[in-house]
């Protein structure tokens, strides 16, 4: 009898213990606690700050975005006038940041891959030079490099009259006011060429699908790469010529002390861009090298021993495996490029942080709202990029036991 009672007691205790000891319940419990704490801290900070601001008679809220900014911005992608609103300033900063970041991301990726592959070269001189490149640029602070490019390179260039003519064809002029280059001015019929570009891209896509299906069913292969290249360039060029070349160029020309016509990038843009590209390409080069080395030589040998040629081996065996190792750090480097572009503040490039967090706050206040908006921008970009990364990872993850 006693034993039965004891068993019963233990059972009732064990249902509670079961709930408490369940791994899932525990993790839910801790998540609830953590979210609760975060929520409380945010609420506290918000109400507290709002109360403080009110006590000092400072208005809060986002109404200021509609008011006049009243200051000029040295360079912008989208048109901007001093009488535009703070909302417009936000957009200008955001597009400037995105412009320099996207351009830097594309170039740093290309350069990083090239340097990474060169570092694996069998040629001693080439691999050593690539190694030096990586070591030098990876091991000095980015801010130092930005200031170097700005103060030691792009702002000490000759004056417009003595511009450096890049390529010697009179189209790209570099001087202490920046880089001047021709600006395309599309004519009425230019949209047909744009359309042709889209048609070419779609054609290439369907061609690839068709060629793949044909290989699966008949085993015959089709030279997709070269044909695609032909279509991608050929079609738009033919359409462009047939529609009477509807694209004029405004060419920069020296008039007096400065260039007229064309368009230009200021020294601060060039310095930031160069520094971002070179600094981050050294990281990407390391990732690429490590990624390629992570594919064992046995894979190449197995592929060769099956009769697969070196080119196919690279494409079907080595690259797909190396990319798995390269992509995650590559994508997080892209995120870093966007965030590091905010170091533009140091050389006065009008990026988001510079025009909105510095100038706008100095002139119009609203620090809390502005900081929140800037944070929102950077974290949305990071979230979008990491969502892409997660999607990629789940798609290519190696299945292991």
């Amino acid at each position, binding site marked *: 009898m006693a034993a039965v009672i004891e068993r019963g007691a233990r059972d009732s205790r064990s249902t509670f213990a079961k709930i408490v000891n369940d791994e899932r319940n525990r993790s839910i419990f801790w998540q609830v606690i953590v979210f609760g704490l975060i929520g409380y801290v945010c609420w506290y900070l918000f109400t507290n700050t709002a109360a403080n601001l009110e006590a000092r008679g400072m208005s809060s809220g986002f109404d200021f975005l509609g008011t006049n900014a009243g200051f000029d911005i040295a360079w912008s992608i989208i048109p901007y006038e001093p009488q535009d609103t703070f909302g417009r300033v936000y957009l200008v900063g955001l597009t400037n940041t995105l412009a320099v970041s996207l351009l830097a991301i594309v170039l740093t990726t290309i350069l990083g891959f090239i340097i990474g592959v060169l570092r694996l070269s069998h040629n001693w001189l080439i691999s050593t030079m690539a190694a030096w490149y990586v070591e030098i640029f990876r091991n000095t602070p980015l801010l130092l490099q930005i200031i170097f490019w700005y103060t030691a390179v792009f702002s000490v260039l000759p004056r417009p009259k003595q511009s450096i003519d890049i390529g010697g064809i009179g189209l790209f002029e570099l001087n202490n006011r920046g880089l001047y280059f021709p600006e395309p001015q599309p004519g009425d019929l230019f949209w047909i060429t744009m359309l042709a570009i889209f048609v070419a891209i779609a054609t290439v896509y369907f061609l690839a699908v068709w060629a793949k299906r044909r290989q699966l069913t008949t*085993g015959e292969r089709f030279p997709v790469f070269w044909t695609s290249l032909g279509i991608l360039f050929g079609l738009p060029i033919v359409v462009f010529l047939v529609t009477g070349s509807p694209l004029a160029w405004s060419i920069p020309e020296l008039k007096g002390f400065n260039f007229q016509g064309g368009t230009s990038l200021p020294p601060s843009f060039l310095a930031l861009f160069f520094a971002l590209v070179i600094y981050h390409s050294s990281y990407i080069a390391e990732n690429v090298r490590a990624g390629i080395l992570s594919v064992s030589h046995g894979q190449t040998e197995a592929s060769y*021993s099956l009769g697969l040629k070196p080119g196919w081996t690279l494409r079907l065996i080595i690259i797909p495996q190396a990319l798995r190792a390269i992509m995650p750090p590559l994508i997080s480097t892209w995120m870093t490029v966007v965030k590091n572009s905010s170091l533009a503040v140091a050389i006065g490039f009008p990026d988001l942080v510079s025009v909105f967090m510095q100038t706008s706050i100095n002139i119009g206040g609203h620090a809390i709202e502005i900081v929140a908006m800037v944070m929102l921008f950077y974290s949305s970009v990071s979230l979008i990029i990491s969502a892409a990364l997660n999607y990629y990872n789940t798609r290519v993850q190696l299945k292991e036991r």
Partner: protein
Amino acid sequence: MSEEVVLSGGEEHIASAISEEVVITFEDVNKWYGEFHVLKDINLSVRKGERIVICGPSGSGKSTLIRCINRLEPHQDGHIVVNGVNLDANVKNIDAIRSDVGMVFQSFNLFPHLTVVENCTLAPMWVKKMPLAEAEQIAMKYLERVKIPEQAQKYPGQLSGGQQQRVAIARSLCMNPSIMLFDEPTSALDPEMISEVLDVMVELAETGMTMLCVTHEMAFAKKVADRVIFMDFGEIVEENAPDEFFGNAKVDRTQLFLSQILAH
């Protein structure tokens, strides 16, 4: 090591169907790695259907020897002729030889990003321009032969070592090779998986495949080999029928080596 391995289907030597046709010839072959003389005056001829087991101490050049046959390693001196094709720097010859000579590695070397069946269909589709349906049919045929058709849709990382090595054998067979090379196919395996791989190799031998196999599995050698070759310091020291070889080796070095591996 070898005593524990039990091959299914008894111990007797399986009948061989050796034809007169010579498919591999080594003629005074020498190879160096830098200063290191790894193959010394190798002369060897292998006839169609012949099954050869190569053994010898570590570093004696066994792997190098068989890797020269599909030119994973180039030789510097002498001639190697495979299926009537002289192996030199001619890329066309190398491609032709490689698609006709299968190779199985100690470390399996399956492609981890492809499923088992994709591992098997890749080379037939690209090298032989085979349609997918046909390549898959052939792949399934050989996966059945190595007794793992049910694993076809899995990835190599999801299989045991023995299963991976059997996939590697099936992958090579899908190219319908006339010669199969094995470089210590079981030495990376746990003991209980060794016999499942050796069984597959014995069955392959029964089909009349020309086989060169670097292994120290004596049970396998006794059952399958027509000739056993002993290598040491880059030389072929002794070659003989398995009974003679294991029963009364002529050379001291061979005897010493045999006593060492049997003592395990």
